[in-house]
């Protein structure tokens, strides 16, 4: 691929701004509070956009585009059943405890509510998870740059992957090192608008090309254009999940586990300037979030709808036009302009067990950019793509440096440091976090679809967690011993379930079944959802049993931490339309409407 000077110029402007924001904010970083909590001074709408942008990393843009191309509009379940209800719940019910308890991080909240050991479990598992996620984002970005040939001709081919990793690491390091969480949040807002600006014209031009939504409906099988059709049984929908697994596994356990307990996103709301703002953050975030399927999933659908006879006009990414023409357009699995997956080592197409070619769905969105965008706006599209990778990485790094400094370093290594020392430690943790991410990026190579990899990490670490928070915030009898035992059993249950089951015809190993195989799931998605359900249920039951046989803390210590013992937030001075509940109801109404339109 040959980019013109205009494309490079646009990308350069973006990188100048990213680092410029870090430099502009450097002088405000006086205390550790400024660095880790943005001084608790950011307006709700800024935090709200950062809230979704921090999550808008590689797994979102590449993974959702890939799933859109593979499974269809049903992927929007990740938003409409998954994210949005959880975001409404965290804003209305949980944020008063996070913000009001003055905890500086989610693990610290667990120490206030339960005890030291529960915090330790959460802090360590979370730190590992952020480094992994950040590494995955970094890896995906480098792989994409290599596949697209972005630096083609500028340096030897074998350098491209390594140079991409080092460059992205240095840029993210630069702006977080200088400006801490504020810098990350500001850049996430910038990234949010750039992602919208880069992808909106892509969807518009793509829809024009395939004849609008009606055109897609005529081209693709109906299972791909309806989000609820065939949900009664796993074999009649493209995800291979029945509605119970979807609603409980994805809708309840995984999404609530992620959006309500993951410090990566909660940290953005904690930076808000008041408790009422903090409660509005996830609700404000939910509004653009619910329309994101049109930006990240729809391009995937368009990519498989564009018929292959249009191919000769476009420069292929990894294949020549002649190779495309040789491929039959299958009715069941249309691939449109999705290229074949090639082995990065020898450049040969990858074949599955039956000798059929494998399509590289992860390239759905990048290939759309190359297909429809002329020079100039192509630079903007690539900037949007890079911005999403950056925000995914930076979100994890800021969450990591806070948890490391407050919950690991200050709690177990050096309890009596000065504030300046912790600020210094935060900067060092930023460097350390980036180095670990680079290590993780090189370690992650074994997964076809990035989304599956992250879901696996989440279902083992995050899924049992929500039961702990739910019981901790809404049942005053829950004890520290109960929470700790429950959390450990939940994680063990997730591991055991993953080791005992296997999706479809996968080989035992990383995909499951490494103990022995007792159950086959129709798809890895179904396996992930049920792993989460088992982990959550185990944690819930064990926590309740242990709590009932151990001594609870006195009620006076739990004010501000448990729902029934905390005074309700005073909202008399707000008009009805200013109250978070009103916003939440509006969000839910829009959500139902969207579900009905695409049912």
């Amino acid at each position: 691929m040959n980019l013109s000077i205009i494309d490079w110029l646009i990308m350069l402007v973006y990188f100048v701004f990213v680092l410029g924001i870090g430099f502009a904010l450097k002088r405000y970083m006086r205390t550790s509070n400024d660095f880790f909590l943005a001084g608790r001074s950011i307006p709700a709408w800024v935090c709200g956009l950062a809230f979704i942008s921090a999550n808008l990393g590689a797994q979102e843009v590449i993974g959702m585009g890939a799933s859109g191309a593979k499974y269809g509009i049903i992927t929007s379940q990740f938003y409409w059943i998954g994210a949005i209800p959880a975001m409404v719940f965290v804003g209305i019910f949980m944020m008063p405890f996070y913000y009001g308890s003055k905890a500086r991080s989610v693990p610290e909240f667990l120490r206030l509510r339960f005890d030291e050991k529960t915090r330790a479990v959460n802090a360590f598992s979370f730190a590992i998870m952020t480094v992994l996620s950040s590494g995955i984002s970094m890896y995906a970005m480098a792989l994409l740059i290599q596949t697209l040939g972005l630096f083609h001709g500028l340096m030897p081919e074998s350098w491209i992957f390594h140079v991409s990793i080092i460059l992205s690491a240095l840029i993210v390091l630069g702006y977080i090192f200088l400006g801490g969480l504020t810098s990350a949040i500001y850049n996430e807002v910038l990234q949010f608008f750039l992602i919208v600006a880069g992808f909106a014209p892509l969807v518009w031009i793509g829809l024009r090309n395939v004849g609008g939504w009606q055109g897609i409906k005529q081209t693709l099988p109906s299972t791909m254009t309806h989000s609820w059709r065939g949900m009664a049984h796993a074999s009649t929908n493209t995800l291979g999940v029945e509605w119970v697994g979807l609603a409980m596994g994805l809708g309840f356990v995984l999404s609530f586990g992620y959006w309500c307990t993951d410090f990566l996103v909660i940290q953005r709301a904690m930076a808000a300037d008041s408790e009422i703002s903090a409660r509005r953050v996830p609700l404000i975030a939910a509004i653009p979030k619910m329309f994101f399927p049109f930006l990240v999933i729809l391009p995937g659908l368009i990519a498989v709808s564009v018929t292959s006879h249009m191919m000769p006009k476009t420069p292929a990414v990894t294949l020549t036009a002649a190779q495309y023409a040789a491929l039959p357009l299958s009715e069941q699995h249309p691939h449109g302009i999705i290229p074949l997956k090639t082995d990065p080592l020898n450049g040969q197409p990858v074949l599955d067990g039956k000798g059929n070619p494998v399509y590289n769905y992860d390239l759905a969105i990048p290939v759309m950019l190359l297909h429809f965008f002329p020079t100039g706006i192509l630079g903007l599209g690539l900037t949007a793509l890079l911005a999403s990778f950056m925000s995914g990485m930076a979100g994890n790094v800021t969450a990591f440096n806070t948890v490391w400094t407050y919950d690991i370093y200050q709690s177990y290594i050096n309890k009596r440091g000065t504030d300046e020392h912790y600020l210094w430690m935060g900067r060092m943790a930023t460097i350390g976090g980036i180095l670990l991410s680079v290590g993780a990026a090189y370690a992650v190579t074994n997964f076809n679809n990035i989304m599956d990899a992250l879901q696996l990490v989440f279902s083992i670490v995050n899924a049992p967690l929500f039961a702990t928070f739910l019981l901790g915030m809404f049942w005053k009898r829950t004890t520290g011993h109960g929470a700790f035992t429950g959390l450990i059993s939940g994680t063990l249950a997730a591991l055991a379930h993953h080791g005992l089951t296997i999706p479809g015809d996968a080989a035992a190993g990383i995909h499951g079944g490494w103990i022995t195989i007792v159950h086959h799931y129709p798809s890895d998605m179904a396996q992930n959802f049920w792993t989460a359900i088992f982990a959550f249920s185990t944690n819930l039951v064990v926590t309740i049993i242990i709590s009932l046989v151990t001594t609870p803390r006195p009620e006076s210590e739990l004010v501000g931490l448990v729902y029934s013992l905390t005074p309700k937030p005073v909202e008399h001075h707000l008009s009805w339309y200013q109250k978070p509940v009103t916003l939440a109801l509006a969000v839910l109404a829009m959500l139902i409407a969207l579900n009905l339109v695409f049912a």
Partner: protein
Amino acid sequence: MGLDIRIPLGLIFLIIGGIMSIYGIVTRNAADIYQKSMGINLNLTWGLLMFIFGLIMYLIGKRQKWQDDPVNPRPWEKGDRPRH
């Protein structure tokens, strides 16, 4: 924080939108470039839209005084305020 995000946000859209619009004007007769985007000059149309968005953001950011002066104590430094 002493920097209103709308100022850098406005500026980056002004600059990128500006670059795209100018490039779009220069290449308005080059049909071969816009064959990909079905004959639509995406650089000019989308660049102009981005430019206008950037201008609005920048002007709002300039008008609004950021409430929180970095020199004054932050909300959390003022001690126990009445909770909302």
